[in-house]
Structure formats: C-alpha cells, structure tokens
C-alpha cells in the first residue's frame, strides 16, 4: 500500500470515528488554546502528513533546532535553576542567595527595586518609601561587593535583572567589582535583561528616556561586551517576553514582540558595522511558562525554528551558534492567586514541567506566596524543590524532546509558527518595535490584552480556582514576608559614605566626558566603566542621560 493510499484509509476511518463522536455530548466549553487556536477533539497522522521530518523537525543541536539547541540537552547537563531574588539591602539579598545556593540552586539572579530600575538613588525623596521593597537596591560599586560577598561568582553565573536605562552602569559596577576582586572579566559568566520593551511596556517607566535612546544604550552593552569581546561570556541581553506576556498578551504575541525586539537590536548593530555572527550567539531570551500546557510547549519548539530561519534567511548567519534560540523560563506570576495560595505550588509545578518538556536552558519557579508579597524563605524553598523533583525524581529528562511526534504537539507547533510569523509581520508594518512604542501602538496592544484577560476572568470564561471557581471562605494568610523597614536608612548611609570617600573632582571630570559621549551618541560603556569604578552612582549616570537625551513620557492609553 502506498503512503497516499494509507492516508486515504485513515481519512475514511476518521470520518467513521467522527460520526460516532457526534453521537456523544461534549462539555459546554469552547475548546481552544489561550491564544484562541481552535482545538479538535483528536489529532491523527493526517494533521502532520505534510511535515518533512528531516527539514521541519530534525535533531537536537542541528537545524532547524525544533527539538532543542544542544545535541545532548538534559542528558548532558540540566537547565540552570535560577531563582529571581532580591529584597531590602544587598547584604540581605546575599544571605538569600547563600540560602538558595546551600540548597542546590545553580545560578543567581538579582531582582532590583523600582529605584534601580528607574535609575534613581535611594537618597532621592521621590522614592524614599520604595527602597528595597520590590527588589534589591543596586546603585553603586559598594552594593555589588555586598551582594556577591563570599559567593563563587567565577564558577556560577549571575543574572542582573536590569533594563537599558540603568543596565550600563549596573553591569559596569559588577564588572569593576569582579576585576577589583581579582577575576578576569573575560571569563565572567552571567546575564542582564537589558530589554527596551520590559523597560517601557513590561512596566511603565518613570522619568526614563525615549525608546531610540534606550535601544542605543542596550546595543552599547551588546557591542562592548560581545562584539568587542570585553566580556565575551556575558549575555548582554535577554529579550524578556515574560514581562510583556504577564500583562495578558498571548503566546503568539509574546514571541512576536520578542522577535520584533531582537530584530531592532540586530539591525542597530549591523548599522554599526558588525556582522550578525559577531554578536548574535550571546543574545538570549526569557520566556513565560504560562497556563496552556501544550500551547506553551509548542511555543518553545516553534520559537526555536523561527529563530533559526530568521538568522539563516533574513540575516545570513554562518556561525552555527547564531542559530541557537536559548531561553530562560519564568513560570507565570499572573497565573497565581492570593486566594488559596498553596494551589500556586501546583500551578507552578505544571508550568515548570512545560518548560522542561519545551527545552529551556534555565528556570525560575515562582513561590506560592508571590501574589501576596516577596517570597519567604519557606516558600522559595518549595519553588526550588519543584525544579529538583523534575530533575531527580520523575525521569522526564531521560530522553530529548519527548513530545516530538505527537500529532497534536507537532500540529500546534506549526500552527503557532505560522501565527507568530503573521504577528511579527504586523509589528513590522507598525514600523518595528521602536516606532510602535513611540506611536503608542504597542501600548494599545497591551491595553487591549489587559482588558480581554480581565473580562474573560470576570465572565468566568477563563477559570481561576479561588477567584471564579471553588471560591471559599479562607483565613487571612499570616506568613507575609516583609522587607527590611530600615533599608532606606541603611542605603542613604551607604551613599553618604561613598560620596565622602570618592574623589568628587575627578568624578566630575569623568561625568563631563560622559555628557560629551552622550551628545556624540558614542558607546557609553568605556566611560561608564571608568565612572562607576570611581564611585559614580546609577542615579548620577542616569541623570546625565536625562539631561542629554531628555525625559520621555510614554503614550499610555486607558
């Protein structure tokens, strides 16, 4: 029997089966993915019959990378367990890092407070109440020494969760600290987010500069670290689609935003005279593991394939490493509820499993108390153990990409790929990411997504246990983690000491040099390295950006 005849036979059988199925009742539900893709009751070989295994699926570590970026994947090495943490002061965050490291964490990640995010120092009266409340304040080189004290930063990678407005000074402080401790920065491993979209639509920026300047600052870091090989092992950018996804955009939009964002950066660096192979292999992504189990897995597989095609066809990359779409995962904070908080452990575990079945390189799992407060030690330990159970107990890592060949997953991977290409085209028609930010187009997309998700929850279409399903009377959650109320006082003291110690006249000269560099739109990194080494604060450097580039008000629409 030929393949064609065999498919005809299946087709006939499907029709028979469909007639039987039609005689039964379905639950009254709209069967679709969260991004609105209609889902059939059954998938069969016919749904994937046009697929060419060698061309479309292939092998791990080989084009088109659908099955994973490395040949061995988790049989060679597990993903990095990297829990996003930061609170109070650098010293307290250091303590939390040590706690996690002692219990098996394999990568560090610093969540910064709203001041550090926005390039504001802790002695600024506009933000006195927010020092250390939603992350760790990191605004001078002394903060970096305190943050990493006693930790093996030459062996374990560090993620600095900072965005383009303040990423240059904060990374520079980190690099300087490492050099002063005697490490070669050429061998430093780590990453920073440095994502213009996180800065502008993931959060709303407070007194930042306009997107074209943010893009240039982000690219300065990529150029200096990677293309110019000053910190070649550093990932100078993580396109953090997680942060925009959290607002309520869907899986298709998430990857569309992320790739449009990457394109803007790649184009900027090509304009500077670099070739794509000079820097692309160090660009990384930070995606969400959200609520739709199979759709998320298909998303990771589709994203790897799209990235490969983009690099090969659009940019003509040659270095095989340029084709590898590597990503960190954060389980979806927006899926967690304040109601019945222990249920969050279950949600997070399923999302973590998605990420592993989807082939992530590193992961943060949320703590069950994160809809209430920053995580307590007790809660964060469960989040850590959630990943360790997957690594050590359930044997899902025995084989690579175990869902490949599933009619549904392969079909969904193709479906997502097509929809992502279309959405990417839509962003490009809106002028690309930078124009779409300035015109407000991306803000409208976000606003519409916020609204859609809320109305789905209000109507019960999106079921949320504890919110619109199985609601029950509950006791007040008592074990609320509180950040150090003295943090502002401690940090103001630190900044006073720093300013008394440093050579303020010398620093003024360096900052003047920075003004000129900004005016000429040259790479800020060399002078920012010099300034932070001499004790310049993040606020002082960002104030120069504000002075030269001017403050930008984002076109938010309600």
């Amino acid at each position, binding site marked *: 029997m030929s393949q064609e005849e065999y498919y005809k036979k299946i087709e006939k059988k499907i029709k028979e089966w469909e007639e039987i199925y039609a005689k039964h009742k379905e639950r009254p539900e709209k069967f679709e993915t969260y991004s609105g893709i209609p889902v059939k009751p059954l998938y069969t070989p016919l749904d994937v019959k046009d697929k060419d295994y060698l061309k479309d699926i292939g092998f791990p570590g080989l084009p088109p990378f659908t099955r994973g970026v490395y040949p061995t994947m988790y049989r060679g090495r597990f993903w990095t367990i990297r829990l996003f943490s930061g609170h109070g002061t650098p010293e307290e965050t250091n303590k939390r890092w040590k706690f996690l490291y002692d219990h098996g964490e394999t990568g560090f990640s610093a969540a910064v407070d709203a001041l550090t995010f926005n390039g504001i120092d802790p002695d600024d009266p506009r933000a006195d109440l927010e020092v250390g409340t939603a992350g760790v304040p990191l605004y001078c080189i002394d903060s970096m020494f305190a943050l990493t004290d006693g930790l093996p930063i030459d062996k374990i990678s560090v993620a600095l969760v900072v965005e383009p407005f303040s990423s240059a000074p904060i990374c520079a402080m980190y690099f300087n600290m490492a050099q002063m401790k005697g490490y070669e920065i050429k061998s430093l491993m780590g990453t920073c987010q440095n994502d213009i979209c996180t800065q502008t639509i993931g959060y709303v920026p407070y007194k930042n500069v306009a997107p074209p300047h943010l893009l240039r600052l982000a690219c300065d870091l990529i150029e200096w670290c990677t293309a110019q090989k000053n910190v070649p092992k550093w990932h100078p950018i993580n396109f953090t689609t997680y942060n925009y996804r959290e607002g309520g955009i869907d899986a298709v939009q998430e990857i569309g935003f992320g790739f449009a964002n990457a394109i803007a950066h790649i184009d900027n660096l090509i304009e500077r005279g670099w070739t794509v192979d000079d820097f692309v292999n160090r660009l990384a992504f930070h995606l969400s593991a959200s609520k739709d189990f199979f759709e998320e897995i298909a998303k990771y597989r589709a994203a790897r394939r799209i990235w490969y095609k983009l690099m090969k066809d659009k940019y003509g990359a040659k270095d095989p490493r340029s084709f590898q779409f590597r990503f960190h995962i954060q389980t979806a904070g927006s899926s967690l509820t304040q109601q019945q908080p222990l249920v969050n452990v279950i949600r997070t575990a399923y999302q973590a499993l998605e990420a592993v079945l989807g082939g992530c390189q590193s992961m943060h799992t949320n703590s069950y108390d994160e809809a*209430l407060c920053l995580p307590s030690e007790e809660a964060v330990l469960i989040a850590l153990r959630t990943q360790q159970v997957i690594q050590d107990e359930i044997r899902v890592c025995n084989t690579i990409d175990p869902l490949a060949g599933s009619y549904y997953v392969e079909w969904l991977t193709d479906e997502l790929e097509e929809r992502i290409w279309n959405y990417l085209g839509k962003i490009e028609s809106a002028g690309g990411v930078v124009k779409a930010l300035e015109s407000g187009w991306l803000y409208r997309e976000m606003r519409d997504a916020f609204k859609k998700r809320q109305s789905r929850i209000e109507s019960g279409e999106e079921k949320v246990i504890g919110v619109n399903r199985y609601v029950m009377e509950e006791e007040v959650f008592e074990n609320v983690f509180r950040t150090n109320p003295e943090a502002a006082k401690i940090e103001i003291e630190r900044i006073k000491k720093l300013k008394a110690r440093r050579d303020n006249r010398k620093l003024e000269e360096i900052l003047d040099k920075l003004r000129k560099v900004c005016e000429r739109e040259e790479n800020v990194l060399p002078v920012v390295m010099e300034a932070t080494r001499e004790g310049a604060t993040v606020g002082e450097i960002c104030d120069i950006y504000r002075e030269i580039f001017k403050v930008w008000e984002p076109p938010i629409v309600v």
Partner: protein
Amino acid sequence: MAGPIRVLMSKPGIDGHWRGIVVVSRGLRDAGMEVIFGGFQTCEQIVETAIEEDVDMIGLSIHSGAHIGYTKRVVDLLKEKGLNGHFLLLVGGAIPSKDFEVLKEIGAANVYGPGSLIKDIVAFIKEHVKK
C-alpha cells in the same frame, strides 16, 4: 449633585506595574464613571488633583510593597487640609490580605488585592458615592 461619578486613578511613587491601574480605570469608565488618569503622582499631586478635579473617589494602585506608607501619606495630607473622609479612598495592588485591615484603619474605604473583580469594585463605589 447630578452627573457621573468622578474618580482619580493614581500610582503614588515610581513603581511601574501598570496592568492593575489600566484595567480598573478602563473598567470604571466602561461602567459610566468619569476617570481622571493620574498615572505616576506624588502624594501631594494626588491630593491637589483630587481637589482641583473635584472627584468623588481616589484610587491608589500600589504594587511596590509600600502600600501602607503611601496610603498613610495621602491620608495625612487630606487631614492637613481638613478633607479626611471627603473622598472615597480605595487602594488596590499586590497587597496581602493581612494588610487590608491596617489600610482600612488608616482611612481606605476598601482594599482590592490580586484576583479582585471590576464588578465588585464598581458595585462598592456606586453604593458608597451618593449622587
């Protein structure tokens, strides 16, 4: 006084989590209220705007963990002006339920944490603003 209920929606401080304030502002507008979108404002600006715009309600959206400090600051400024209780004050954001009572003691009429529904917020405002 006739006319729609007027509300001021603001984010005291500099934290940029914006989904909450946008979703609620939009929801209140869809429910027929007139929304003045303050965005980022200092506590002083919030009180000034509320007076100038003659609003019925002030909504504070706080996700930074500093909800007690900011709410207290707004209420203290209202007290200084002899306007405590003049506006219906609602606070929302990433706020643990344990702090709801604390915020109410400070002067919030109600508090909305994650998982709150717009219809409940609208119903509460309509019940408490007499127009």
